[in-house]
């Protein structure tokens, strides 16, 4: 940590020579230890030592930025020169700015030092468990890493942030096979600050393995029908991110194409839906100390009981459009649970899918989406019937979140998000 402060002091001295009136910069040092398991066996151990320096230079209302890994005096000089040149060539735009003085803040969080022996034991335990309990499941890739980093930011408004943090992450890519019959792939992962719990019991990992194991002999649906979806937590997160990106993010608000441009304070979805970006929450392993704009990070609620509380805007977009800034970097999505057990959600579906993964692109601005239902199962008369193949789902994001029929009591916490199952109506489902 002291090395980074020395580096910052060195950077300050270099910047002084350039007589810059307004700037903000950040420096970081990081170390990664990553185990890669391929086809069920240890393949590679990767160690990454890295540095990064980034700076935004403001010349009046003109802004330029640069970043790089060279933190020698020469490298930092080059960084200042690059950012200054970018600012000099940029047109004036007073919307570019950073936060007013937030004071000085320093903290440490997570598992800063790894217990690599215990980490390897947990990985081997996972491999053994899968081999014993799910012999048809193949672990195509397993990535398990410990990351630690120190990060420091200073700016000319007087703010200083200094943070040291560390965490474990664990992700798998899996398929299943029996004889010549094979599934497609699925993936899931978690981050954690301890190794107290077997990996298979964390997040959505056991459910994903059970799901792929049950997908070896899928059936192809005939024709198309209007049905319902019960969407798994990981897939729900994907749709929520698309929803906020499509209707409430900086880009679509700046260019005016958001269909929720003038909907703040209005009902935009089912009143069952509350979407927050949580920063401080016991279920979120690592919180952000600060935002990229230089604010102390806070929790933010975007949709509360179906009402749009605010757009998810960074400082530039807020200044550009005269709307409030959200002091949150995004990413840690938390949905409030419902009051219906998952089994009851499924039992209430006449015909539809348990949607494990949506394989499709981002919807257009109007919210229309279309993609393949992967790792998914047919639901008929309240019961799960079979895995499905070559099945498309089509709908509209905005309409889908208006047509929520229920949200599960069960929540899945993967360390960076908290998601329930959601059931929605009015989705076009088509087979061959």
């Amino acid at each position, binding site marked *: 940590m002291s090395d980074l402060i020395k580096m910052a002091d060195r950077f300050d001295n270099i910047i002084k020579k350039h007589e810059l009136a307004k700037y903000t910069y950040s420096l970081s040092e990081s170390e990664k230890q990553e185990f890669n398991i391929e086809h069920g*066996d*240890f393949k590679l151990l990767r160690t*990454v030592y890295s540095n990064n320096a980034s700076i935004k230079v403001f010349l009046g209302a003109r802004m330029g930025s640069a970043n790089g*890994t060279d933190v020698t005096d020469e490298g930092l000089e080059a960084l200042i020169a690059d950012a200054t040149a970018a600012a000099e060539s*940029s047109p004036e735009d007073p919307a570019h700015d950073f936060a007013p003085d937030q004071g000085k803040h320093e903290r440490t969080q997570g598992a800063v030092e790894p217990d690599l022996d215990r980490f390897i034991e947990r990985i081997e335990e996972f491999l053994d468990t899968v081999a014993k309990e799910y012999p048809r499941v193949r672990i195509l890739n397993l990535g398990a890493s410990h990351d630690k980093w120190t990060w420091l930011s200073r700016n000319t408004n007087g703010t200083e942030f200094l943070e040291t943090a560390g965490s474990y992450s664990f992700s798998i890519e899996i398929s299943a096979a029996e004889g010549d019959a094979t599934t497609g792939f699925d993936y899931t992962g978690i981050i954690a600050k301890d190794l107290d719990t077997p990996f298979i019991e964390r997040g959505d990992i056991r459910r994903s393995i059970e799901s792929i194991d049950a997908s070896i002999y899928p059936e192809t649906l005939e024709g198309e029908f209007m049905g319902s979806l019960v969407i798994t937590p990981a897939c729900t997160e994907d749709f929520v991110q698309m929803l906020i990106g499509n209707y409430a993010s900086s880009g679509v608000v700046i*260019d005016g194409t958001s269909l929720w441009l003038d909907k703040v304070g209005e009902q935009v979805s089912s009143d069952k839906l509350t979407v927050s970006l949580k920063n401080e929450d016991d279920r979120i392993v690592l919180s952000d100390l600060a935002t990229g704009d230089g604010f102390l990070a806070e929790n933010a609620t975007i949709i509360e009981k179906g009402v749009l509380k605010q757009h998810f805007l960074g400082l530039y977009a807020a200044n550009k459009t005269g709307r409030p800034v959200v002091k949150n970097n995004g990413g840690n999505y938390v949905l409030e649970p419902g009051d219906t057990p998952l089994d009851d959600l499924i039992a209430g579906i006449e015909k539809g899918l348990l949607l494990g993964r949506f*394989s499709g692109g981002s919807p*257009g*601005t109007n919210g229309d989406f*279309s993609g393949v239902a992967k790792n998914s199962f047919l639901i008929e008369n309240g019961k799960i019937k079979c895995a499905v193949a070559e099945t498309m789902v089509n709908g509209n994001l905005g309409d889908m979140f208006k047509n929520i029929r229920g949200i599960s009591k069960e929540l899945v916490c993967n360390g960076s998000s908290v998601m329930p199952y959601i059931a929605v109506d009015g989705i076009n489902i088509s087979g061959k």
Partner: protein
Amino acid sequence: MFQDMLEKKRELFADGVQTVLRGHGNRNRRVVILKGNIVQNTRSESRGISARVNNKGTFGFASVAETTPEAAEKVLRAATRNASLLAEHARRSIELPPSLGVGSMPPHGVINDTAQKEIIEACQTVDNYVSTKYPDLTTRTIVYTEDSQDRTLVTSDAFNGHMITPRCYIYVFIGSVTDSGVPVELFKAFGGYGSFADNFSDVTKYYPEIDELHKRLMDKKEGVYAQSGTKTVVLGGFMAGMLAHEAVGHTVEADLVRGGSVAGKNLNKQVASELVNMVDFAHTYDGKPAPLPVYLDDEGTRACDEVLIKDGILVGYMHDRESAQHFGMKASGNARGWGFADEPLIRMRNTCILPGKNTLDEMISSIDDGYYLISSGNGQADLTGEFMFGVTCGYEIKNGKLGKGLLDTTVSGVAFDMLKTVDMVSDTLEWSSSGFCGKKQMMAVSMGGPSMRCKITIGGR
């Protein structure tokens, strides 16, 4: 000389293992103009040294974001230690792959820097052209993006070399709204291999293509939804290239074959119409440099072409040295890492379906009721070859002629089923090199294809 410094560290290579020491830099430039506002204006450089050690099939890798002799020593020590530590836990032990030849590759590629001011002015020129000529657009975004790799390799039992791969693009995104209020958008990327001056010293040369993009957007604005079902279509070259990469290419990457991809049980079998030929080109196509040439991969294997499908028969996979040994095939230089901290993985290079003998006009005029599908914004595929592509630009074909434009739709299918329906292949090839492929790490890849007449499932609305 940096390469000389790395060469001196060869004395630290351990015996009985295979070692690659790599100096690696990435440079990025990015400008984004959203409706006339510069919302991104940044330059970045990352540079470091990595070492990879193969100890009987377990690999140690280490990297440092520095380019000093001390950094080279540090990564060699760490990679060697990592390989030994992992060997204690691995359940396998294999023979090291044989050497595929040693030597020095001649350097390839040059990189020239351009002032940010010049980049911004070029973007503003394009933005001014679009906003002035087409004032009724509801959205317009101009994005300049430049990335380059600069790699220096010193290996224990393969080729050494210094390779530079620059590329840069200007993306033009434009949008409008239909009479019923549905937003419609299109984009196109201009540029390719080389530095700014190679591609954008005169941006006016792209104006005709921007005009064509606008025409297609206006057709889309008046467009209709495709009827869902299995249809006869002409899949444009861009779409064929995406199919080659996403739905076939990934399934024939040897690590995914070992993971159970559909290609495993189909080697030497008919997987496509005999009109279909597919190759992953290393650096040269038709006597000219391929869009993103690769001469040497990050294991030090000299790159050569890999034929994947010949006359409809699946004949090859893409390999690194270890997988080539596993399958008893040859490695063609597909092991690549994107940044200095990235270990090499099996990646595609310039993957394309080869042209045939038909003309596009012949193909369109042969269809009474179908679609001409031109461009896509996204695509995904599975180990099974099941794919889904979004279609952002297309037209109806009615009685052998192009009809109305199409609103956004999707196509889907299973690659080795769908490719068997190909019955006409155009004599032209369309490359696309601006994208990244995501497979743990990002990687610059190019893909290409001819127009193909085939049957495909279209999603409708």
